[in-house]
């Protein structure tokens, strides 16, 4: 029996640029195979819809909802190797395995992503400087492609494996993945929080001591100007071990000061409220959604004024000196998951996320970005700054060694697209790039300079999708799948070859 299709209007998490497609939810790999194999129109897979832009949309085509295929196929509790279907969420994996002492090797800021999406975006987390990105922990994949089902691993077909890592779902649908989980003793994190007065202070503190932590991130106030430019709250953590959660709260740190001692006492009180309880399970993992945003907020709720006030409060709330406290995994990794549908707060026009990375040495570009956004009063929620370790072999995998900065920006602000276009130029110039899983507005001409191995990726992609059947709105908007002559596009299936009168060739990016 074939699954029913329904015409649906879809957007990404940012709720911008909606497009309608046939949404199909296969419930078995066989049904999925049939869909991908017999495709006559552009199609792309969609998981939980957490990509900010248009990566999981295919206007006028078919969008395959993979969440109906979310079974765990096997787990080896000695090695921590997990085999799972592509539609399973990190949330379900954590709920199953954290109580057994295993955590996902990489988690983004939300648990509500699928394994397939994690691979297609080659997601990273706060531990990139130590552990790299998601696909570095994947042992093998089963892909449904227009030429049939293929099993790929970094050894049996490194080209296709790494083209899929960060390939935005354009090399096929991830049916299954086998990955290595990491062992943990508890479901708690030992979190150090500190303030940085400005950007230099922040970068300096991160450079000096990130090595001591598996997880590190800074929340930067991009609305602060002048001597406060780039002020930040840095939170860094390691997985808490059983002794860390002993009755005394947690191990007394060496770097004690009186301030420090006071905050430690407070933290101990909080911790022991949970930890001192009889029958306390150090591996318990059952995070809840505390509240839901019930409807789309009126336009302009999140503006320069309200966001400045929020950012100010966030900064003031953080301790001046390093303070250590245990925190449940969910509140450390996924604070926003506690608020359902928080994307509605941005109102009907939605929002976009701008995430860039520049190599170490290009700190001036990070400063310039923050300066220009603050200077032009572009409203932004706290930005996330972190350092990346070395990248992996994926031609479209986002992370490279350097600094990454991510900002949520209400869409529809006057002049926003021009500001971001300017920033793109500077990022590309510095040898950096923007993250495709977040993108919703990059100028296509800059893509090849940001991802110099694009043609290599296109060639591998064509191997599994010679007729250009897999296509997304993101892919079309950025001409991702098109070779430079424009001969092959994801649209060819519906529209035939394009007529190109007056073709002047590709534009050079304006400098």
């Amino acid at each position: 029996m074939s699954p029913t299709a329904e015409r649906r209007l879809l957007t990404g998490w940012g709720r911008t640029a909606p497009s309608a497609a046939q949404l199909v939810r296969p419930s078995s790999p066989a049904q999925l195979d049939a869909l991908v194999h017999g495709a006559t129109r552009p199609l792309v897979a969609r998981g939980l819809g957490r990509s900010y832009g248009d990566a999981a949309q295919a206007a006028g085509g078919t969008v395959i909802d993979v969440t109906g295929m979310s079974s765990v196929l096997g787990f080896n509790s000695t090695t921590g190797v997990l085999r799972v279907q592509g539609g399973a969420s990190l949330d379900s994996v954590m709920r199953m395995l954290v109580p057994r002492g295993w955590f996902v090797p990489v988690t983004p800021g939300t648990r509500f992503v699928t394994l397939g999406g994690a691979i297609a975006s080659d997601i990273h987390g706060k531990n990139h400087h130590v552990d790299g990105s998601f696909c570095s922990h994947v042992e093998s994949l089963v892909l449904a492609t227009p030429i049939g089902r293929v099993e790929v691993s970094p050894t049996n077909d490194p080209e296709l494996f790494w083209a899929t890592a960060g390939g935005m779902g354009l090399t096929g649908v991830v049916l299954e993945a086998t990955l290595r989980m990491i062992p943990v003793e508890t479901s708690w994190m030992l979190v150090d929080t500190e303030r940085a007065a400005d950007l230099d202070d922040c970068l300096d503190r991160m450079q000096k001591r990130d090595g001591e932590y598996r997880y590190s991130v800074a929340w930067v106030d991009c609305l602060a100007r002048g001597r406060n430019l780039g002020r930040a709250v840095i939170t860094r953590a390691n997985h808490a071990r059983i002794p860390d959660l002993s009755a005394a709260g947690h191990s007394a740190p060496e770097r004690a000061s009186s301030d420090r001692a006071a905050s430690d006492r407070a933290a101990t009180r909080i911790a022991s409220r949970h930890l001192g309880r009889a029958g306390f399970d150090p591996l318990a993992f059952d995070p809840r959604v505390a509240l839901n945003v019930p409807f789309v907020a009126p336009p302009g709720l999140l503006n320069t004024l309200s966001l400045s006030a929020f950012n100010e409060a966030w900064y003031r709330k953080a301790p001046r000196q390093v303070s250590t406290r245990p925190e449940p995994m969910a509140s450390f990794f996924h604070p926003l998951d506690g608020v359902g549908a928080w994307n509605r707060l941005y109102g009907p026009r939605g929002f976009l996320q701008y995430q860039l990375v520049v190599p170490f040495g290009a700190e001036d570009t990070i400063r310039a970005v923050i300066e220009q956004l603050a200077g032009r009063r572009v409203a932004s929620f706290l930005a996330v700054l972190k350092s990346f370790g070395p990248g992996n072999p994926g031609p479209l995998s986002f992370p490279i060694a350097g600094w990454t900065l991510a900002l949520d920006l209400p869409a529809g602000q006057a002049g926003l697209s021009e500001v971001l276009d300017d920033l793109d130029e500077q990022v590309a110039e510095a040898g950096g790039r923007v993250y495709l899983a977040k993108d919703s507005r990059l100028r296509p001409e800059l893509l090849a300079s940001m991802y110099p191995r694009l043609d290599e990726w296109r060639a591998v992609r064509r191997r599994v999708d010679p007729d250009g059947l897999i296509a997304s709105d993101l892919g079309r908007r950025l001409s991702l799948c098109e070779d430079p002559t424009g001969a092959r596009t994801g649209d060819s299936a519906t529209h035939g070859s394009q007529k190109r009168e007056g073709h002047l060739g590709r534009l050079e990016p304006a400098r």
Partner: protein
Amino acid sequence: MNDATGMPQSAVVIGGTSEIAGALLQALVRRRLRRVVLAGRDEQALAKVAAHLQAAGAEQATVMAFDVTEVAGHAAFAGEAARALGQVDMVLVAAGILGEQSESETDPEAAARVLTTNQTGPAAAMVAFAAELRRQGHGRIVVLSSVAGIRVRQANFVYGASKAGLDGFAQGLSDSLAGSGVSVTIVRPGFVRTRMTAGMDPAPLATTAEAVAADIVRALERGSPVVWSPPAMRWIFAVLRVLPRSLWRRLPG
């Protein structure tokens, strides 16, 4: 595809020689617009517009012969334009004539010509493209209406009535497209100094094609369904719309 900031990469222009259309296309080519189909009767004039767009950075600017009053061919034309572009992100409906009011008042054919060119033809073209965009699952129709259609004045009531009809049609079409991924943006400029109004005394708040284009770009960014240009027209017409008829009739111009 339209991006998150509302900027299109491809466009079909009906009435490609319109000065407002030309100014808007130039502004959009500076952003993301790369492929354009220019439709209209005067192919030579369209070829000039096409050359300008290519000089400004458009990769493709295709001229197609098209008479907005020949509605029988509209459906086929919409299909042809869509094939030429691959994806149609924007359809700009800019065909229109002012007509000579005194002639329109006395000559039935002249009156019908204004109404067919400004209202019947463009409405039929919108129907044809709405079907195309619906199939495609996304896209935006931008239609040039006028404040003249908000409350029709005796001084230019044939033109005003044609725009009133077009504006109402576009509003209804917009509602009928809700949930389809296709949206409609209605542009209501005041007096714009162009070839169309050459030799006329400019009305208060007279504007330019470039200023109207900038207002449209801003509306695309914000996702506004209606663009008043200049924006103050919105408030002026909020008042004029409810003015007692005895007063309205006596307004100058």
